[in-house]
């Protein structure tokens, strides 16, 4: 690995190496820029470091001190954060879906949320690039949305849970599909094909998963980028002309400063606004890039409710990736809804400890009742939604008075579901329950409290008054400060965000190349 001294002024210092930062590190280094990418987490070697143990693999999640408040506080952890080189893609469920094209203009076309300053057709191009880079294993024909090129790898074999989802959809008259997944179904380079171990959300120990850690980071290293792990960024410095000069970070107990011509923040929806707010100066008393006052605002999560039941036959839902099949019916169907937004649902395969926590939290089971219920593990079936929650200014990230192990003020996360969110969740719970009943599942119960992916808090937009960054992910206030991760999403859609973040990062890298050529960096 090529290494830089802190005193070197590199072209780009990138904070975070997940879906946004990892992609950018690779693409910018490949374009010839000097790049140092910082990550607060360790640089794991999956073959050596990953155990087949749910508890041990909590090492992948960002579990630092945070305050979560509001009417519906968000549970932080495995569903929405990662602390590792590769970010949360190291333990993401590999679901790689495109936005519905109309969502890029959901305010103008669908009447809710906000428009993106991007054209869906251009994003379609970058989605294709991302899918090729990640060797997505997907169906030959995807049933929803405009035509897309063939996925580079074929879809995986469906497990019993996915087949039951398909039967449920067929009973309701909805289309279903194999889920496009970022895990290979045939060998690719150093990746062997998926062995259907089922630990995808706790770290893939075979490297079949095509995460930032296995795809973008090796490309970045090959192209000369430096990946500095266990380096927690605490503050971005800005000079008198209002330009960023580098990043203060703590590594091995020492505060250091990396000089850079450009800073890109890719810390996701909590850590990105936290870093910007923690970097306030006399010139920027409300934090960097915050003249609009919108840094930290419009935080969104996605509804992740589920319906669970029991089948007479064994299902063994833990085999293979958890979300092998899905239906996007209610993402593309607008009739018959009493809410804005959309949702999809996918097959599920929670591992035993996760399943215990569902039983204890959603049903309040304990003692002998819990034990009896767990004996049915191999017969359980379930579907889980990924639902769009609407952006709301008051759902936000601010700084708390308390500090963390680095001495940095911790984030306070405030969240409340809107009436629209609740209507969407009720609709989905109803539909998912019907789909389970239709295939003869018994003892069906809803899990109505879960959420997952995050978005918002540094939204992109058309002008500096109503947004933090422009369509190039460049901050309106500080020309050499960029933000590229899920926090720039103006709306979050009803699909997992990882592929959209990577497509956005690919576009941003191309825009940076273009701007550099015109000497507009």
């Amino acid at each position: 690995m090529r290494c830089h001294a802190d005193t070197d002024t590199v072209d780009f210092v990138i904070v975070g190496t997940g879906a946004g930062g990892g992609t950018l590190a690779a693409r910018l280094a490949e374009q010839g820029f000097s790049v140092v990418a910082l990550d607060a987490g360790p640089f794991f070697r999956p073959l050596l470091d990953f155990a087949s143990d749910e508890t041990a693999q909590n090492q992948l999640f960002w579990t630092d001190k945070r305050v979560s408040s509001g009417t519906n506080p968000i549970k932080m952890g495995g569903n929405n954060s990662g602390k590792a080189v590769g970010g949360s893609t190291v333990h993401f469920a590999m679901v790689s879906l495109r936005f519905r094209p109309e969502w890029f203009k959901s305010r103008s076309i669908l009447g809710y949320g906000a428009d993106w300053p991007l054209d869906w057709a251009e994003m379609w191009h970058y989605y294709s690039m991302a899918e090729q880079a990640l060797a997505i294993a997907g169906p030959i024909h995807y049933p929803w949305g405009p035509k897309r090129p063939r996925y580079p790898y074929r879809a995986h074999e469906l497990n019993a849970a996915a087949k039951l989802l398909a039967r449920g959809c067929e009973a309701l008259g909805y289309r279903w599909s194999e889920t496009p997944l970022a895990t290979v179904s045939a060998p690719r380079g150093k990746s062997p094909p998926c062995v259907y171990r089922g630990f995808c959300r706790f770290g893939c120990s075979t490297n079949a998963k095509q995460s930032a850690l296995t795809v973008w980071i090796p490309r970045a290293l090959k192209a000369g980028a430096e990946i500095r792990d266990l380096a927690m960024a605490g503050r971005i410095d800005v000079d008198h002309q209002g330009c960023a000069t580098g990043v203060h970070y703590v590594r091995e107990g020492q505060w250091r400063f990396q000089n850079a011509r450009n800073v890109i923040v890719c810390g996701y929806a909590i850590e990105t606004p936290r870093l910007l707010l923690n970097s306030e100066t006399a010139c920027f008393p409300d934090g960097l890039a915050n003249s609009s006052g919108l840094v930290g605002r419009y935080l969104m999560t996605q509804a992740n409710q589920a319906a669970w039941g029991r089948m007479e036959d064994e299902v063994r839902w833990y085999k293979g990736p958890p979300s092998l099949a899905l239906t996007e019916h209610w993402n593309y169907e607008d009739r018959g809804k009493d809410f804005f937004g959309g949702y999809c649902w996918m097959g599920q395969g929670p591992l035993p400890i996760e399943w215990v926590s569902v039983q204890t939290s959603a049903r309040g089971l304990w003692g002998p009742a819990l034990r009896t219920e767990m004996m049915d593990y191999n017969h359980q079936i379930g579907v889980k939604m990924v639902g769009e929650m609407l952006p709301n200014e008051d759902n936000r990230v601010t700084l708390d008075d308390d500090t963390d192990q680095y001495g940095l003020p911790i984030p306070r996360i405030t969240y409340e579901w809107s009436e629209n969110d609740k209507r969407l969740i009720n609709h989905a719970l109803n539909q998912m329950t019907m789909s389970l009943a239709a295939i003869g599942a018994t003892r069906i119960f809803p899990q109505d409290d879960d959420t997952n992916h995050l978005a918002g808090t540094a939204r992109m937009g058309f002008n500096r008054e109503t947004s933090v960054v422009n369509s190039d992910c460049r901050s309106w206030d500080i020309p050499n400060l960029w933000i590229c991760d899920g926090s720039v999403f103006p709306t979050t859609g009803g699909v997992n965000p990882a592929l959209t973040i990577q497509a956005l990062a690919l576009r941003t890298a191309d825009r940076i190349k273009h701007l550099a050529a015109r000497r507009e960096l």
Partner: protein
Amino acid sequence: MTKDADNRSAAPPISGGAIPEASNIARAPSRPATDRVYERSAHDLHAAAGLIALSVLLDSAVEHYRGSYHNKAMFTPLVTATITLTATAHGLRAPAGLGHAGRRGIFVLAVATGAVGTGFHVYDILAKPGGISWQNLFYAAPLGAPSALIVSGLAGFLAEHIRATPPDESARVFGHSVSRSAALGSALALVGTSAEAALLHFRGAFQNPAMFFPVTLPPVAAGLLGFAGLRPAVGAYPVTQACLTATAAIGLAGTGFHAYGVARAMGGWRNWHQNLLDGPPIPTPPSFAALALAGRAALRLLAHDASRAGHTPARAVPP
């Protein structure tokens, strides 16, 4: 029959293969030459039938083990393939006539088992959600696999027919010439095998460029072979024969490639007990070699037809 066998053993050995010497041009081939062509062709067809049966035996043993033999009928191809394999081995070595009827019955049984197996596999596909869909064509019971038993049975059946034909008669099966039947049958089987390789290599996203070999060259060889079977016979088929030889080479090399595929799975050959099940099937590529062998037998019969008709002497055809 016994008389034929006696003739065979009494016939003087002919050097330079079954094709008449240059001095014999314009003269109809002698009885021993016919005898020899029939014997070699029957031998090769038996060998082809045996190789395919062996492939079916090993492949269905592995694949049905993978399916936990959850239906008792899944043992059937193992039993039938073993019997067929034994019959071909016997046919290769036994004097003509001995056990002919029994072997013929076994080959008919192989064809029937293949047909019933195809029915089972179609049912398996249709019973799954999505019915006839890429997902089920890729991962449900493979549509083309049981027909390998049909091909094995037919090749064995033809071999028996040829061996039972007196040298002074044209070998015919169900009223059609054996040479044409063998050529067209082998061509069709090659196309089918290639189609199955295409489906499964498409499932593997043609991730290794070598995966294109079995879906490109064998169809060309099959086309030439089918063409030869439909046209009036000529004395030699050098291009077709070369393509069939290359097809056989691909089949044998395929085993090596599939072994490499097993090595590329998680744990490689150290983890053979899982990767043999989930990796590319090692016993299947030699089917191409078997069909190429059958195809070459068909060419030999066609060339013999031409020389016996006396129109086109074997050695007179330019390469």
